[in-house]
């Protein structure tokens, strides 16, 4: 009983903490940047085969010929939360230009992810995949969240972005759409 009350108290404490963080002036938060770093000698993308929120298997090898924006994230990661709406706006701006957005959630269950989707400005309409064991982070050599890879039409990792980004910034839209215009091998 006592431990339940304590947990409830810490739940309220977290809520107040998140409220304060959410209301903090933008200048106090580390800025989201808008640069994608080109990867030298673009390597072949590692495999990725995970279930989406509808319990269907999604495999990036079936997406060859399209540009893929692959984002690794978690709901408890502040920059991941901040950039998620901009990923949706990138999706809306590029869906008809051969660009697919995929967000891989690390270590959380469907219910947690679904709850988060209900509280953000522009909730994702692109596929969100679940990696409950976090195995994909090793395969993709992710060292910190969020990390985003842009995979070209030939299945090669063309760009990498470590840390939060404004994905709907014109510079990023130009880089991503530019990849689709490159000739396929």
């Amino acid at each position, binding site marked *: 009983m006592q431990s339940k009350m304590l*947990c409830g108290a*810490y739940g309220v*404490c977290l809520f107040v903490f998140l409220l304060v963080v959410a209301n903090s002036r933008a200048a106090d938060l580390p800025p989201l940047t808008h640069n994608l770093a080109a990867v030298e000698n673009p390597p072949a993308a590692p495999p990725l085969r995970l279930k989406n929120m509808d319990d269907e298997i999604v495999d990036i090898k079936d997406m060859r010929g399209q540009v893929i924006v692959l984002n690794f994230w978690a709901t408890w990661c502040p920059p991941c939360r901040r950039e998620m709406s901009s990923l949706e706006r990138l999706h809306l701006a590029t869906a008809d230009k051969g660009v697919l957005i995929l967000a891989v959630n690390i*270590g959380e269950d469907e219910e947690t992810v679904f709850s988060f989707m209900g509280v953000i400005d522009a909730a994702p309409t692109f596929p969100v995949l679940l990696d409950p064991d*976090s195995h994909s982070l090793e395969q993709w050599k992710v*060292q910190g969240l969020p990390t985003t890879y842009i995979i070209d039409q030939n299945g090669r990792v063309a760009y990498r972005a*470590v840390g939060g980004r404004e994905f709907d910034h014109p510079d990023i839209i130009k880089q991503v759409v530019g990849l689709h215009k490159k000739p396929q091998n």
Partner: protein
Amino acid sequence: MKQKAFIVVLIGLMQFFCLAEATQTRKEDPDTGLATWETHADGVTFSLTQILQDQARAFYVNRGFTLDQIESYATSCVFMTVVRNDDAPGRIHFIRSNWSILTGGKSRPPEPVSAWIQRLKENNVTKSALIAFRWAQFPLEQEYEPGGDWNQGMISVGLSAGSQFDIIARWDVNGKPYEAKLEEVRCAK
């Protein structure tokens, strides 16, 4: 005469901006009272922000920990840490265990994440809670390209509430070493 005055002003401004670049700042959040120490060195931003023990408890209890399981971590002086490559001369690379906490005339690295994970495993922490813990920590090793690659994450300093220390972050660009130091940083009370 005017030309001389212009040159003097120009040199003064250059000195000001050079000094300003190396200056450490301390800001306090008006709502929470929590302090952030920040410095910029050779194109890299390095900052530490205090985390209250109750904030750390609340964060991890909501990730599936019990209060008992997370107590020793929450009371170990935890900071939210940011490193960002704004415009360093190239890709920066760091290994967190090469950083130094300077306190009481001694130097040691931040508390190793592997040791915390081992302790938490012994306390029967669930798999999903362990994954959240591991990835909420500031990266153990990382590379940032210029133009804004960055991370934020938690670092345990391993000191008691209110303790004061200096911290040196170290990185390299193509093998050339660089460092940034924050002085008189204080653990939240």
